[in-house]
């Protein structure tokens, strides 16, 4: 998987944690449900895999194994499906505008907090993502990606998207 795909995969998982207060627990539970216990037997193994993201504050060298890659992609799609109603609300134009802006504010502040806690803020990509004005469209793109990778065909779409630029 290209470096950029690895970065996006981890940022998608971080967005899931920002959307769901129990996101990290849901990840572990989903790993068991999806039969990914071999790749991620516990939360430390999952954390180690996610730390392959070069944008992390404490990044680990090396590449993800294909089993880990496949597992993380499955995890994102499964959790996106679980959060589909919430993602849908965030991107729906028929929702009350004031209510939706409050939802966005809540998501953005949690996402920024998580990024500041775990990512290397010296990196330009991270600085843009946490920027209150410029990062808005990037955060919207992250939520949009999660919305469209939910569902039966989402896995194939996300897999292909994470390999962008590899051919």
């Amino acid at each position: 998987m290209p470096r950029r795909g690895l970065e996006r995969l981890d940022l998608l998982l971080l967005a899931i944690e920002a959307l769901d207060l129990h996101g990290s627990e849901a990840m572990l539970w989903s790993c068991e449900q999806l039969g990914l216990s071999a790749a991620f037997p516990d939360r430390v193994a999952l954390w180690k895999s996610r730390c392959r993201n070069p944008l992390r504050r404490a990044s680990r060298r090396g590449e993800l194994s294909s089993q880990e890659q496949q597992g993380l992609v499955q995890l994102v799609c499964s959790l996106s499906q679980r959060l589909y109603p919430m993602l849908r609300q965030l991107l729906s134009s028929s929702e009350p505008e004031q209510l939706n802006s409050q939802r966005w504010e809540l998501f953005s502040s949690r996402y920024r907090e998580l990024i500041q806690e775990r990512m290397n803020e010296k990196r330009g990509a991270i600085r843009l993502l946490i920027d209150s004005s410029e990062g808005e469209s990037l955060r919207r793109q992250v939520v949009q990606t999660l919305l469209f990778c939910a569902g039966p065909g989402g896995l194939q779409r996300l897999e292909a998207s994470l390999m962008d630029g590899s051919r």
Partner: protein
Amino acid sequence: MTNFSLSGISSFSSAQLKLHFEESSCRLDLTGLPDVSASPSDASDGVPGQRLSILTGWELNLGQRAALQGKLEHLQALVAAVQPYVRHLVSNHPCPQGDPSSPVSLEPRGKGHRLQLRSSQANTEPLDLQLDDAELADLTQCLDQMLQDQRLGISLPLPAPQPLRRREQPRRKGAATGWAAPAAALGALLITAGLASVIPLPERKRPAAQPPAPTTSQR
């Protein structure tokens, strides 16, 4: 919390099959007939007559906004437009699908997506719909469910999603500014070196010739 339903219910009435796929703002109904000449191994669950192999019609309801009906070629055009478009959206690179002559076209418009459906009947204006992300996601989920449903025996040829080529990838924000700092440093170094070469070096002063020191010989 789930406020949407996923359903794929088939009903049988006098050999006519119906498949329904439903989401919050979208409902897709397929009506057709089984291929009775198919062998039992081709049928879903090995039971002949339970696989919709001949499509007689389909109907798509997009909430209160539109109800569309069509034939197989229209369904194929819808799938051929929506699936690649959404694939590009996942890469944050929306790319228009379908040309003005095709029955279905989809392109970005404003914060949403413009779905145009052209009737095969003459003198009929194309139907122009503005979908937001949520509505497009609902439509995509319905189509995904339909494509993966084992009870559907119609071939809807669709290439597997492919990664974008390097040149197709959206330019990353901040990529240009990423090079700015090293480029500025290099530029500053070159300018300093240039200026330093212009400044004349101080001439080295040669010591004035001194008369040879008198030598005295003493005996």
